């Protein structure tokens, strides 16, 4: 993958292993990737090949044994955990396979939670949250708690939440993995469209070749490296 001036997220030489018994199991060995601003990248790979680990490393939720990750050109390794968390709140949005909505909050409050964490909850943020929910087709469900939403609706709320703080990059970890084909297709469409509208780059981990085919770039993860596909 070639470096470019508009690179928004990059990783080079990532090594990652986990303890197992007396030794360690290597998950990533020298993996690198580059995400350009405003583009979408899908990552496929076999189960257990380290896709989620790669996404967590890119998000700064885990730290590699070796290698470097840069957010908008700045290495995140030297940042303290507090500073990293503060920057993550506005640089990244994340969507997970299991939605991870907070059950005590309504759909609108779940979306607003991202703004609360950066300390900005005013009329403008409320308006944006409502607009995002409307954009993902949930204007009528804004005041419903997650328990009263379907799986597809919950994932749409998660998409709106990921975009609430106008992130530069959205990382989606198998966003359609828990949804049926039709619903998954709808969520993927919303995810791609809204990210494009909000000018956020999208990195999506998926098993679904059709969904992967809809992104600008496609890559396949093996232990050694991330290979771009035609």
């Amino acid at each position, binding site marked *: 993958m070639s470096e470019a001036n508009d690179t928004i997220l990059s990783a080079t030489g990532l090594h990652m292993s986990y303890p197992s018994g007396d030794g360690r199991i290597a998950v990533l060995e020298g993996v690198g990737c580059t995400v350009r601003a405003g583009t979408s990248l899908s990552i496929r790979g076999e189960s257990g090949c380290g896709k989620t680990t790669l996404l*967590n490393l890119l998000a700064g*939720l*885990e730290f590699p044994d070796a290698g470097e990750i840069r957010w908008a050109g700045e290495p995140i390794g030297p940042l303290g955990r507090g500073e990293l*968390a503060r920057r993550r709140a506005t640089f*990244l949005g*994340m969507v997970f396979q*299991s939605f991870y909505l907070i059950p*005590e909050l309504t759909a609108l409050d779940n979306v607003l939670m991202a703004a609360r964490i950066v300390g900005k909850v005013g009329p403008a943020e409320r308006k944006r949250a409502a607009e995002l929910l409307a954009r993902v087709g949930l204007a009528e469900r804004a005041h419903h*708690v997650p328990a009263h939403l379907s799986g597809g609706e919950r994932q749409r709320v998660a998409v709106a939440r990921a975009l609430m703080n106008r992130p530069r990059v959205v990382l989606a970890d198998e966003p359609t993995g828990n949804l049926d084909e039709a619903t998954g297709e709808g969520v993927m469409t919303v995810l791609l469209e809204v990210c494009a509208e909000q000018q956020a780059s999208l990195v999506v981990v998926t098993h679904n070749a059709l969904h992967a085919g809809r992104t600008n770039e496609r890559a396949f993860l093996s232990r050694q490296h991330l290979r771009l596909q035609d």
Partner: protein
Amino acid sequence: MSWPLYLALKQLFPTGRRVPFFTFISLAGVALGVMVLIVTLSVMGGFGQQIRRMIVDTVGDVQITAGQPMSDAAQLMAEARRTPGVVGATPHAEGVVMLLSGNKPAFPAIQGVDLTHVEEVVPLNSYIRLGSVEDLDDDSVILSRTLAQSLGVGVGSRIELYTPLMLEKMRHDEVLLPREFRVAGLFEIGHTQLDSSLVICTLRTMQDLYGLGSAVHGVSLRLAPGVDPDAIADRLNQRLPQGVRALTWMDTNRDFLFILQLEKNMLFFLLLFIVVVAGFSVASSLLISVVRKTREIGLLAALGGDARGVAACYCYQGLFIGIVGTALGTLAGFTAVYFRNDVVQAFSRLTQSRAALERFYMFTEIPAHLAATDLLLIVVSSIVIALFAAVLPAWRAARLKPSEALRSE
């Protein structure tokens, strides 16, 4: 509102749902502990205040004594009356006698009071249950009610008194003749010891019985409301002759007051353990919450929340349980204190123990008084305990690694 506080409130009181069971149990535990503390300390405080009032009523705010008979009582009284804040002064003499009624002996304390001044300091009339202070003269005495009952005497009965002075005469081979007195009245103060063994006579009688001449054992002073007894005692001590001292009622009852305070403190610490147990309940509930919400904690990290914020969220929950639980407990406690007499009367009717209550505890109504400092101590202790209970869950939550939290099942 910061996100940890917002989320803490939402977790305790979720949108569109009833109060979660764990919140209810935690609040109830703290509230129960606070309520028991308030009721117990109020009743203890009430009894303590009643006892203090009784002591002050019977001995005055300040006593001037010398450890031996004082012959210049009138001068001391005049000196005391000149002190700003002193509103009354009365001399007294006291001792022990042997009392005989028929064949029944008793060894009560005896106090001689100056009938012209005693009401300035001691509200003697208010304690008289039968007879009258006006009937008291140099040939009569007033007995405490329990003592009279034990001797089987009443108003108008005659009793005989023997004094240590008579024993002295007996050593000189003089004939031992007791003094005979008429019972002019019966009094009841509400203090077991005083009500079972005290005889009141005129000061002249006491001086005669003890051979004091015109001397007295002490002068009791009554102060204006709100005047500090210590300040008056200090001021008097600077002017009193050598060997004569002014002591406050706190000085003369220091050991008794210490015991009262010790009992109250012990009860406070023992009952505080109810709140401590409630604190364990809060801690276990919040720990369960941390385990149950592990993935949400991971999500918060993914959204940009830091470990400090996650910890604060759980600390706020403990703090909020402490504040609300304490408020509910305080409300319940004061309600229980307000209806205490109805509760006791219903209980005594149910168990038919009203007579026993009156006989042994000498009350039909439970006194109650809660000092502001006691209330503050209860409130602060309960909130701090609840807050501390949240520290371990908060620490556990903050230590979770975001990626592991998100992967947890």
